[in-house]
């Protein structure tokens, strides 16, 4: 029986980069996957939603730029064709991952892995059993939608994965949960012509964003996309008497063709028998790891959603690389701490580092500076003037602690500030850095000048 240096469980955005990096470092690596390469992100998450979001954004732009010199007649979303396109994209990327793993000499084992002991993984696949002996194991088994127990199982009630598998969209959709998954899918559906309602238990949607940032997104979703958003309301009862779903909420009944449940995610540890390895989990089943990705068992690490930290594909990837290096070189590198969040609503929003809300909660004194895209030549030229960028700085050292952006290309723009925050750049340096004209990224420079009250393209602050 072969002894592997590293066995990775799960080939999602946390697992496959970990396997490849370990192989690059000379380890003998096996990866266990029970479904598809690329995990949730590639198959039922980030990637397929971006196929839809890209089209939705384009369609929306075409519709709303009639007065800027485009005339289009009869634009509509061909959902079945779009669905086929999504399938092609997913296939291509999935194969890409597989080829990369193979090219790096990672042994691919298909099937359901489970721990026999801390060093032995048994993989079951169609009656076949394979036993892998591992010096070290990286758990990267991911997460799945958390469906509240009171919600019945029915084909008209779907989670994000089920929604992305639909070949045809319903006429009306109720989204339970106003987090980023719920809001992204709501925007896609609304542009495709679906009547969408969002019900959120909290007082607002997208609460990971600062109030001023999310207000911009919410008002656009409500006023332009026509999405009905009901906040501070609980779902009390849900049943499917015929071809429609009846949903009783705290303030009235809603009748809809379909319900999308987007109320959060839970770890995937079923069938993994991690207790046989002695790995500890928290009350909600997430594997507990320290800042180096170590579980309580010496040779077992965990990365990604299963650890219950920020559930983001790029964070999982970063963790995977860190852990692979820690496991192979026996170093102690910490997980990165500067993690950008990107939200593909219409308009897009993104943030990194400290938010104003977090600073307030910590009682930390910060300085806030904003610049609206309406003051930017490029944005005016492109007729994309809604939204703004926002900087959060330390008044003492001028350090950039955080940034947020809502508006055109927000998810791309956040990259610059991710570098800046991680590199501990000051607002003064960001302001002094020449930003190419005319680009959307100039907004950061203007906001950085605004930190010191020296913004050229904004009227002076009233005293």
């Amino acid at each position, binding site marked *: 029986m072969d002894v592997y240096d590293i066995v990775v469980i799960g080939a999602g955005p946390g697992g496959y980069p970990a396997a490849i990096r370990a192989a690059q470092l000379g380890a003998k690596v096996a990866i266990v996957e029970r479904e598809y390469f690329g995990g949730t992100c590639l198959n039922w998450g980030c990637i397929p939603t971006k196929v839809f979001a890209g089209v939705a954004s384009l369609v929306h732009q075409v519709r709303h730029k009639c007065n800027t010199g485009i005339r289009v007649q009869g634009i509509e979303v061909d959902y079945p064709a779009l669905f086929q396109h999504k399938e092609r994209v997913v296939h291509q990327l999935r194969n890409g991952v597989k080829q990369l793993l193979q090219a790096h000499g990672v042994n691919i084992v298909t099937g359901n892995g489970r721990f026999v002991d801390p060093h032995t993984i048994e993989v079951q696949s169609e009656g076949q059993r394979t036993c892998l002996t591992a010096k070290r194991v990286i758990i990267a088994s991911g997460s799945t939608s958390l469906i509240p127990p009171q919600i019945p199982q029915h084909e008209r009630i779907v989670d994000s994965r089920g929604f992305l598998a639909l070949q045809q969209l319903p006429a009306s959709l109720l989204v339970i949960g106003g987090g980023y998954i719920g809001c992204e899918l709501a925007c896609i559906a609304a542009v495709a012509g679906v009547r969408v309602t969002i019900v959120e238990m909290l007082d607002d949607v997208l609460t990971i964003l600062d109030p001023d940032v999310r207000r911009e997104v919410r008002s656009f979703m409500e006023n332009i996309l026509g999405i009905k958003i009901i906040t501070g309301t609980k779902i009390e009862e849900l049943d499917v008497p015929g071809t429609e779903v009846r949903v009783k909420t705290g303030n009235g009944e809603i009748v809809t063709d379909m319900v999308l449940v987007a109320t959060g995610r839970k770890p995937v540890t079923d069938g993994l028998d991690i207790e046989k390895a002695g790995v500890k989990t928290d009350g909600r089943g997430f594997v507990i790891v320290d800042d180096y990705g170590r579980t309580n068992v010496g040779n077992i690490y965990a990365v990604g959603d299963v650890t219950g930290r920020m559930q983001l594909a790029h964070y999982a990837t970063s963790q995977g690389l860190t852990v692979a290096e820690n496991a192979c070189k026996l170093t102690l590198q910490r997980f990165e701490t500067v993690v950008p969040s990107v939200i593909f609503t219409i308009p897009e929003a993104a943030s990194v580092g400290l938010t104003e809300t977090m600073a307030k909660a910590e009682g930390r004194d910060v300085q806030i500076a904003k610049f609206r895209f309406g003051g930017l030549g490029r944005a005016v030229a492109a007729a994309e003037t809604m939204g703004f960028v926002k900087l959060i700085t*330390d008044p*003492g*050292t*001028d*350090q950039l602690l955080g940034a947020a952006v809502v508006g055109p290309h927000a998810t791309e723009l956040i990259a610059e500030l991710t570098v800046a925050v991680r*590199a*501990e*750049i*000051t607002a003064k340096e960001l302001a002094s850095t020449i930003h190419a004209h005319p680009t959307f990224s100039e907004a950061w420079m203007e906001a950085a000048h605004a930190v010191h009250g020296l913004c050229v393209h904004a009227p002076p602050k009233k005293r």
Partner: protein
Amino acid sequence: MAKPIMMPKFGQMTEVSTIVEWKKKEGDRVSRGDILFTVETDKSVMEVEAFVEGVLLKIVVPAGVSVPVNTIVGFIGEPGEPVPDVKPFGVDSQQAKEVPQKKEIAYVMAADAAQAKVVGTGGLVTPQPLLTASGQVETPPAPAVSPRARALARRLAIDVSKVKGSGPGGRVTEKDVLGYARDRGYTNLKITPAALELARREGIDVLEVIGTGSGGRITVEDVRRAIAEKPQPLSRMRQTIAARLTQSFTTQPHFYVTVGVDVTDLIEFRNKIKSQGAPYTVTDFVIQAVVVALQEFPEVNSSTDGHTVRRHQHVNIGLAVAVEGGLVVPVIRYAECKSMYEIAMEAKQLAEKARLGKLTPDEMSGGTFTISNLGMHNVDVFHAIINTGEGAILAVASAKLQPAVKDGQIVPRWLMNLTLSGDHRLIDGVTGARFVNALKSKLEDISLWQRLCVW
């Protein structure tokens, strides 16, 4: 004429005090009984109230400056009244180091009457006019640094005092700073912009910071660590502790003798009377045993300066009490005249006051013997340092259930170790051994306690 406000004298021992905070500003109306300022002595924080009316005309000694007692700290009078000319006095060296740019000068004047009284829980202490000789300490003159050199060093976040000057009289020039920075490898230093900014602001020498970022780059976190490691002045209380214990440990030759006391019967006795409502703790029994034993061993209840010996005629028991940031030692005076109940109650009150920071200086002085009890902190044995000026201290460890030999049998018993630290100039080994054994036999003698603690 404007009336001077004096720094009052708090108790017998206090010679220097620090104003923590002025509660009134210059120009404020002051009524009799208003709190003027708070003062930190070497032991506690006290409030000082005015007992003349008028307007606070001038604050002579600002907050944060230590001055001898009876220094004039300010003037009260009617608006427009001239403030008398006072001649500059000394500057407390500690404070001077902390505020190098701003020289604080205190003024003193031989005054006829003190114009403030102390409000403490202990009541009124009459200030006694007294001029202390000096609070002045010579500081070596720092080498001259040119303003440009200083500005450059600040911009680079390096410590200019480490730069060797080449100018006249060793004056540090801009060129010297540049050369120093180059020699120390400043050009190769990797530091994030925010970290440099923070280092400048906090006066951290970046050449002394070890970078832990990628490629050894100095990050904000590294500078934060350096800030946290910067030597901070000890609190007034810790400075007092440091001075006293160092004095004791370096001038009084300590020796130690330990005895194990079987407190099984005592605990049983105590639990019995406790169930009847008696308030005694095990410590109260130890205090009482010490009070009795000290009267039998006058050489332990003594103090010496190495030339003379003073046999104390009262038993004043100091109790070491842990408080936030250090410890204080309130004293039960004339314990030999008090009943066990009185002693127990006073010990409780003093400990409570100590924890609230309300002890007056007089309540913390005059001890002849101290007891330090770590019984509640699970220790087998420990050695205490004599409270300076006293002859001995008793360290009380935890009572623990242990195997003991009684009547030839091994039985579980509650055993507690007592360790005497004695000043060997006064107390020899045999005396120490006899003293701790006297304590042991008293604590193990239940008939004694049946007599002593009537309940």
